[in-house]
């Protein structure tokens, strides 16, 4: 590919290098999928599969939050609330009503949409900092509610959630497929008419409103889409762990997902995927360092943000500036 490759016009000042061309290429996504599909051939131990499945679920969470934070620019500090709602809905239905997990999915979608509206409708009238504070509060409310209700099993949570498949390898592949669809779905959504409206709102809410965009409704749509993504990730999470408890849905978890989005590059799908993989795998890779694990994790994150302030794989605007 050395000669005569047509340079596509993109809204950047610098001429694209070979690396950046590859990054913009749709094949980058396929290469990522291929790596995910081939990984079990390298290491299929229960530990590796467990960590990789968790990473895939985390990618889905980050893709969902990216819709809210990356596309629409709404700072959500309580995103894990939707993750919890999804996990608990499917967990409760599966253990108390003996429904198979796939059957719980429609219920999860309905419940998360309702949760998105209930949480989003009042809060999205707020802007920036205030929105962040209120979402932070809602995240905690969901967790503390789960901690105190009997139906959610209180502090010990729900255990004995049936596995989707007996084999962890099959479950890993299933997760990868679902997550890939979710990531592609989020990317397509970002390029739609609605996605354009989201970016418009992010760049200048007043201007968007003046141009006839119903900003409130557009923001609510982003919030609900993010909620559904988070809820479905919750189903995978519940199926993977077979037990869920409120300790999995703390503020730290929300912060980590947000960190994955920011670290990868807000609004950039490949960036968010890379960011999520880094954030979820790094603590496991550093596991042997025991006490220093989270210290080093923090240092590495700071280093990344210093070297690449726009994220590992920043978004490039398709609109010519």
């Amino acid at each position, binding site marked *: *590919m050395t000669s005569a*490759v047509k340079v596509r016009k993109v809204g950047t000042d610098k001429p694209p290098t070979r690396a950046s061309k*590859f990054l913009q*290429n749709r*094949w980058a996504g396929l*290469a990522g999928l*291929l*790596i995910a599909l*081939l990984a*079990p*051939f*390298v*290491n*299929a*131990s*229960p*530990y*590796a*599969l*467990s*960590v990789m499945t*968790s990473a895939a679920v985390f990618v889905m969470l980050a893709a969902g939050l990216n819709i809210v934070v990356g596309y629409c620019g709404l700072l959500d500090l309580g995103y894990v609330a939707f993750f919890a709602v999804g996990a608990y809905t499917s967990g409760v239905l599966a253990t108390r009503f003996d429904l198979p997990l796939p059957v719980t999915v429609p219920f999860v979608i309905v419940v998360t949409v309702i949760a998105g509206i209930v949480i989003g409708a009042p809060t999205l009238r707020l802007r920036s900092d205030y929105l962040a504070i209120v979402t932070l509060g809602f995240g905690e409310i969901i967790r*503390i509610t789960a*901690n*105190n209700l009997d139906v959610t099993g*209180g*502090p*010990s*949570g729900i*255990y*004995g959630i049936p596995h989707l498949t007996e084999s962890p*390898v099959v479950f890993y592949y299933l997760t990868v497929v679902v997550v890939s669809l979710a990531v592609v779905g989020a990317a397509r959504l970002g390029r739609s008419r609605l996605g354009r409206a989201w970016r418009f709102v992010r760049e200048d809410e007043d201007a968007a409103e003046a141009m006839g965009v119903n900003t409130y409704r557009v923001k609510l749509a982003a919030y609900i889409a993010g909620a559904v993504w988070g809820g479905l990730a919750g189903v995978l999470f519940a199926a*993977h*762990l*077979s*037990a*869920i*408890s409120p*300790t*999995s849905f703390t503020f730290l978890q929300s912060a980590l997902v947000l960190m994955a989005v920011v670290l990868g590059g807000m609004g950039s799908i490949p960036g968010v995927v890379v960011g999520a993989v880094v954030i979820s795998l790094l603590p*496991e890779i550093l*596991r042997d360092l*025991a*006490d220093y*694990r*989270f210290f080093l994790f923090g240092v590495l994150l700071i280093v990344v943000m210093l070297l690449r302030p726009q994220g590992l794989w920043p978004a490039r605007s398709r609109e010519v500036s």
Partner: protein
Amino acid sequence: MRAIPLKSLTPLVLLGLLTAGCGQGLLGGDDQAPKGNGPILLGMLIPQSGSEAAIGPYMSNAAQLAIDEINAKGGVLGRKLELKTADDACDAQSAVAGANKLVTEGVNVSVGGYCSGATLPTLPIFGKANIPMIIPAANSQELVDQKLKHVFLINGTGSQQAAAADKWMTKEGAKSVVLVHDNTSYSKDIALRTKALLDAPGGADAVLVETVTPKESDYSANVTNILAKKPDYVYWTGYFQEGGLIVRQLRQAGYKGHILLGDGSVSPKFIEIAGNDAAEGVYATMTQTPDTLEGAENWIASYKKKFGTDPGPYSNQAYDAVRLAAEAIGKAGGTDGTKVVAALEGIDGFPMFSGPLKFTPEHTLSNGGFQILVVKGGKFALQDSLK
């Protein structure tokens, strides 16, 4: 549309196929950890990070001590023992990853488990791999209620601890008791069971069950609620971090009555947080700790010599868990999970810190061995063995 850069993908595919041939890949076949003459691996999930991180070393050090002692005597069945630890961070997700890690490393018996919430999701993982679990510390009733064949608890259970608390407070002539728990499964379990016992006619009455939110830095609202009931006994069933703060604030607010702690608060850190003055005279329900054991001086000395610190809470249970695992493997004549479980069920009168061991049909201790400690001069000391 440009040509597919197949070239750039080929190395990836090749890499995948190459590595598949060896190691732990999907096509790599089922070569498990070496059986036969290699070391027998004992896995231990303990908190090494997070809010309960202080407990981890107490347990892993004691387990290592037991392993070294057994190895010095020639090991089990001619094989050495080896300890593998993994961090559960007292959180379900980390615990599942950690448990899978231990299974991958090929552990034969699990001797870990401190936080009940983190131990619960690991039960099916070890169960699927046919690995018996001897749980040294976690003791929530939910672990028992699942009636799993491979799970054994060597710490006293919530109901045994509640019975000890009821017995002590009745003996002390308490009239009105406030129960305080932090809504974690273990703590709530003890508080509600104690309430059920106290509510029986006669003796003390539970006037209030107060719930606190863990990890806060101010509990004055809860303290006000407690004081409003004018209790002569307050029973805190949670962990030491919140317990230290609550006791300090209770005393600062002028509470003069007695305070009783659950076993999760029995730690030198409790006294550190509460302060010596506030902690003095506080009682606790606790299984036997190294400090209160008769004839454990030699054991404490060898622990101290090896690790340079005193043993702490659950050191003795972790130590016993390893010894018990070794005993059961020896009796079973190998590391086969089913045989080890059968050997554990058959054990009768194995000497442990908590007394001669025999499991109940539910795989719990027939005798919880709870006793009453008191803080005296900045240390937990034995007050009443409740025998």
